[in-house]
């Protein structure tokens, strides 16, 4: 589906366009939302956020048509912003006011933190490259287990494998990742 096809469909039948959008970009939006909300929101909230994103996209179709960007870029930016908003609203609701003088608040100096962030980002990227290099089904198992936070049973169901096989493969894959990271002096 090209961006043009989708724009035309949006004019003819917004419902079909919505379905096409979810079929084509649902996984991307879900991955973006998971990336931001993992550990903060439950599955229902994540689904709610994803649907909010698609609704927002459909509401702002005019803006996309006027812009010269790609639909993918447009969707990604709306997804990221909405996910960040959701994350903020969730953490704001849950946050307990902590005094800056409190002993619990330990923050490194701002400059150190920026270095850490970059380093962290690079490490995560590298880790993902290693996971990709594991090959199937190990890549999917590790991604589902640690990125999508799926249970081993759900992964087993998804991949049509036994629970024990998934457990064993996950363990071996992690061992391999550890070996690679050790050989690269990451620890």
């Amino acid at each position, binding site marked *: 589906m090209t961006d043009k096809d989708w724009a035309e469909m949006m004019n003819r039948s917004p419902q079909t366009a919505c379905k096409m959008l979810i079929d084509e970009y649902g996984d991307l939006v879900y991955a973006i939302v998971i990336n931001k909300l993992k550990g903060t929101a439950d599955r229902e909230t994540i689904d709610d956020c994803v649907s909010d994103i698609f609704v927002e996209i459909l509401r702002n179709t005019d803006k996309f048509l006027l812009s010269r960007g790609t639909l993918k870029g447009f969707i990604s930016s709306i997804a990221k912003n909405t996910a960040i908003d959701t994350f903020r609203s969730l953490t704001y609701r849950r946050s307990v006011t902590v005094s800056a003088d409190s002993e619990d608040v330990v923050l490194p100096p701002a400059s150190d933190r920026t270095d850490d962030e970059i380093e962290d980002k690079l490490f995560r990227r590298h880790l*993902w490259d290693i996971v990709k290099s594991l090959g199937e089904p190990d890549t999917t198992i590790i991604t589902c287990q640690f990125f999508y936070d799926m249970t081993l049973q759900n992964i087993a169901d998804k991949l049509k494998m036994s629970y024990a096989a998934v457990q064993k493969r996950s363990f071996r894959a992690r061992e391999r990742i550890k070996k690679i990271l050790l050989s690269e002096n990451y620890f």
Partner: protein
Amino acid sequence: MNKKRKTDEIEKLTALDDDSVEEIAEVCPFLDESHKNRLYALCEKKLNADKNEKKSVLTENHDTEYILMKSKKKPFFRRLFFTIAASFALIVGVTALTLSAKYAMHRSFKTETKDKSGNKTLCEISIESNDCAENNADEISERLVVNGFNVYNFPEYLAFLQGIPKNKNFYKYTAADSYGAINFSLKDLNNDKMPEMLIYNYDTLIGIYVDTEDSSVAEPLFDMDSSPLLSLCEFDVIRYKSSDEPQTEIYYKYIGGKELNVIYGMQSFYYKTFNNGELYEDGSEYAYYAVTKDRLPDEGHGWDGERYSFPDEAYRISESDFENTRNKFSEISIDHIAALPLYEIIPETENVSK
């Protein structure tokens, strides 16, 4: 924004870079078909809600003609409809509350019983809350009322009734509360006098036989073995001795229960013997015992015509053991009792209602 929240936020928002996320979505897509459909349904719902909201804004702010038209007709009917609906809801609510309160206080149901000739009798059974103030009790308890007779301990009452032979038409059972237990008195309705009571021997298990004018028709009035419930009975019986021994009155109290094949019992036996109208002897005896079916006391226990003899020492148990067992019997729930087909348990409703 406090510092702690900021830390969390930075941590989350730098989890993975955009390219990696995009790759993950490609390499390992998360959504299956049903999940996509669910998402689509959610979106549709939200979009529809959007449309409705827009419509309502339109009608309220811009479509003056439409509003004017509506104000002439619909609001009246709408108000009327809401008034009727609200009144109806109020009536239903109040009725439901009243009924539920009443039901909590007084649960009642009726059942039909048949006698031998097939005549149907209506039997009203209700469970009522005990009135603390009236009964000077500490706690509210429930009592079973069968045709107007109060019964506090349901299992005993039902077990008792269950053991009564169906062909015993001439006894009236009355039940009155006494220390939370039951006092049953039996009355021969034909001649309005107490029937002869005999305590039967242990070798046919515990049972109380009614000795009528003709002792040959004596039948077990209460037989634990016939009761599917854990049986427990407690009642006082005033024994009027037969005419050849008019001087002795025996006040007999029995508490018994059955668990599996073990019969537990406590007997308290009071007696007064009169000689020519004067008190000759006044005494009492107690015993707690446990008897098993396959280990019954020798014959000769029980009432021998003059005195009551307790089982051997071997069958005696301590008072605390007895009380522990007795507590077990009391744990039979009301629901269990209520679920039983009472028309079978209460054989002679006609008698009960008199």
